C-alpha cells in the first residue's frame, strides 16, 4: 500500500502561515519560486491570496517530530528551536512589496478590483491573517472549545452580535426584489452566530474521541519508557556492581549502555533496519561488546542490503575483529561511505601493525575472510600496515546496478 504524501505546513518555518514553505517541501521547488508564483497569481483578481487562504485552512500544521531526548530538551528550553532566517524574511518582504507595487499599478490603470470593494477586502484579509496566525490550528481549537473565561464571553458575544445583525437585517428590510438573497444572507449570519455559541459542545464530542486515543498512546509510551529503563539501565547498573574489579568489562558495559541510551534518546546511530548503515553499526557494536575495544563507526550515505553488500559487512566485521584482537590498540575507527554506486569501508587502528608481505598462506583470517570474501563478490580489499604503525583495511564494493539511488543523493544540481 502506498500512502499518499500529504503537504503539511511546517510549524517552525512559518513567515505567515507556512503555506509556501510546506508547498516548496512538497513539490521539491525552491521556496522563493513558490512565493513569487503566489504573488504573480494575485495580480489576477487576487487568485494568489484566495489560494493561499484556502491552503492555509486545508493544509494541516505539523510540529517537527523529534526523538524523545530532543523533544524533552526542546520542551525544557535547552535548545533553540528552528526559526526563519532574517534573509528569508527580507526576501519575503521584498517579493511582497513588488507584488503590492504591481497591484497598485493595476489599480491606477483601472484593471484591478473595483475601488469600493478593495478597501474592505484588504482590511478583511489582513484581519483574517492576523487572527489565524495567532490562533493557528491547535489554539483555535482550544478557543472554540473553551466554556469558561474571557474567551468564552468573547465568543458568545460575537455569536450574539452576528445573530442580532441577521435579525435586524431581516426586520429592517423592505420586501424588495432581493428578498431571497437577503433572507439567505440573514440565515447565513444567524448560522455562523449559532455555530459560535454551540460550537464548543459539538467540537467537544469529536475532540473527546481524539483525546482519548491520544491519552491511550501516551500512557503506552510511558510504559515503554519504564520498560526500557528497566531492561537496559537497571540491568547494566546491576552488572556493574557485580564486576567492579574488571576495568575492561566495566568500561565496555558503560559504553554499551551509553550508546543504547543515546540512540534511544536522540535517534542517532540506529542499529535496526535492513540497510547497510544499520548492519555495519550492528556489527561494530557486536565486535566491541565481545572484544572490549571501543569501535567508533561513522557512516555517510546508505544503500539497501544485497548479497554483495552483506559480504562487505562480514569482511568489515572480520577486519574489526582482527584489529580488536591482535593490534592492541585502545580504539578502532570505522568509516564507511557510499555514493549509491559503490560502498567503501575503512577499518583503522593505531596498534602494533604487521608486515603484510609476511602473512602466511594459512592465515585464513586475512586472506580468506577479508580479501577473498570481498573479491569473490567483485570488490577489492587493500591492507596497509607496517610494524609499529597500525593497520588500515580498505574495502570497496560496487553496488549492483538497478538499485534505487539512496534518498540523500536524489538531488537536482
Amino acid at each position, binding site marked *: 500500500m502506498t500512502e499518499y504524501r500529504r503537504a503539511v505546513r511546517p510549524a*517552525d*518555518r512559518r513567515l505567515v502561515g507556512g503555506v509556501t514553505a510546506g508547498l516548496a*517541501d512538497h513539490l521539491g521547488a*525552491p521556496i522563493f519560486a513558490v512565493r513569487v508564483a503566489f504573488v504573480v497569481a494575485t495580480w489576477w483578481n487576487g487568485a494568489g491570496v484566495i489560494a493561499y487562504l484556502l491552503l492555509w485552512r486545508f493544509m494541516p500544521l505539523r510540529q*517537527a517530530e523529534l*526523538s524523545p*531526548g*530532543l523533544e524533552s*530538551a526542546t520542551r*525544557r*528550553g*535547552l*535548545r*533553540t528551536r*528552528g*526559526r526563519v*532566517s532574517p*534573509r528569508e524574511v527580507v526576501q519575503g518582504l521584498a517579493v511582497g512589496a513588488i507584488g503590492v507595487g504591481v497591484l497598485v499599478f493595476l489599480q491606477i490603470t483601472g484593471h484591478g478590483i473595483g475601488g469600493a470593494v478593495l478597501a474592505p477586502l484588504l482590511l478583511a484579509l489582513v484581519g483574517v491573517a492576523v487572527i489565524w496566525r495567532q490562533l493557528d490550528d491547535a489554539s483555535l481549537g482550544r478557543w472554540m472549545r473553551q466554556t469558561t473565561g474571557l474567551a468564552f464571553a468573547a465568543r458568545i458575544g460575537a455569536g450574539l452580535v452576528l445573530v442580532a445583525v441577521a435579525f435586524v437585517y431581516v426586520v429592517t428590510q423592505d420586501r424588495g426584489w432581493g428578498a431571497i438573497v437577503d433572507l439567505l444572507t440573514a440565515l447565513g449570519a444567524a448560522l455562523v452566530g449559532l455555530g459560535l455559541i454551540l460550537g464548543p459542545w459539538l467540537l467537544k464530542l469529536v475532540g473527546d474521541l481524539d483525546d482519548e486515543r491520544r491519552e491511550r498512546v501516551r500512557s503506552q509510551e510511558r510504559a515503554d519508557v519504564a520498560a526500557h529503563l528497566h531492561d537496559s539501565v537497571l540491568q547494566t547498573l546491576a552488572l556493574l556492581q557485580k564486576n567492579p574489579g574488571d576495568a575492561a568489562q566495566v568500561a565496555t558495559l558503560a559504553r554499551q549502555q*551509553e550508546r543504547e541510551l*543515546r540512540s534511544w*534518546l*536522540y*535517534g*542517532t*546511530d540506529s542499529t535496526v533496519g535492513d540497510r547497510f548503515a544499520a548492519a555495519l553499526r550492528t556489527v561494530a557494536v557486536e565486535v566491541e561488546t565481545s572484544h572490549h575495544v571501543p569501535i*567508533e563507526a*561513522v*557512516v*555517510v*550515505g546508505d544503500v539497501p542490503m544485497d548479497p554483495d553488500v552483506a559480504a562487505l559487512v562480514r569482511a568489515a566485521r572480520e577486519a574489526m575483529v582482527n584489529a580488536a584482537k591482535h593490534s592492541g590498540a585502545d580504539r578502532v*575507527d570505522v*568509516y564507511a*561511505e557510499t*555514493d549509491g554506486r559503490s560502498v567503501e569501508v*575503512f577499518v*583503522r587502528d593505531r596498534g602494533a601493525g604487521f608486515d603484510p608481505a609476511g602473512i602466511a598462506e594459512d592465515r585464513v583470517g586475512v586472506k580468506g575472510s577479508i580479501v577473498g570474501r570481498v573479491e569473490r563478490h567483485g570488490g577489492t580489499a587493500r591492507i596497509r600496515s607496517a610494524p609499529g604503525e597500525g593497520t*588500515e583495511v580498505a574495502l570497496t564494493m560496487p553496488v549492483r546496478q538497478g538499485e534505487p539511488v539512496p534518498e*540523500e*543523493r536524489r*538531488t537536482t*544540481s
Partner: protein
Amino acid sequence: MTSLRVAIVDDHAMFRTGVRAEIADAVEVVAEAEDVDSAVTVVEDLAPDVVLLDVHMPGGGGLEVLRRVYPRHPDTKFLALSVSDAAEDVIGVIRAGARGYVTKNISGPELVDAITRVAAGDAVFSPRLAGFVLDAFAGTIEVAQVDEDLDRLTEREREVMRLIARGYAYKEVAKELFISIKTVETHVSSVLRKLQLSSRHELTRWASDRRLI
C-alpha cells in the same frame, strides 16, 4: 607564553568541576556559567579566549548563546562540547559560529589540545563531525571547483574530511597527502567557513530536513 583564558559553560555542575580539574594545569579557567544568560554575561564581561559551550542548556542552548554574542565578540572562540551527538544540533551550533565539536567523553589532554587549536583560529573536527559534514555536502564529488565557490567542497577538502572521518589525526592526514600540517589546517578551516556561509540548496535542504535553520 601566557596561558589561555577559558570559560566553561554547562548546566551540570559536576561536569564543570570535572572539566576544570582536567584542564586547570594547562589553561586558566576564568569563569563558569550554567545557562544562556550567565554565559552571555561571562563572554561580555571577561572576553575569554575560548568558551567550552554545551549544546543543550536552559535558555535556548548553545545556539542561543552564539546568536547573542558571536557577532559582537569575534575574538572569543567557541568549542562545542556535548553528549547529545544529534546531528541537527551539532551542525546548528557550528553554523552559528562554533569552531569545532568534541564529545564529552574526550580525554583531558585531547581537550586541551582542541582548546589550543581553536584558540589559534583553527577548526577542530572529530571523525563524527567530519562524517556529518560529508553527509551535508553529499553529491559534490566532481572535480576541483573554484575556491570561492561556497557551495561545494573541493576534491582536496573532501579528501581531508574523509581521512579525518577515517580516524586520522591532522598530522597523519598531512603525511598521507604529502602536505604540511598547516595546509591541513587551512583546508579544515575552509570547510568550516563553507559550512557556516554556504546557502547551497542541498545543504539548506539537508539542514531543514533536520530542522537546523
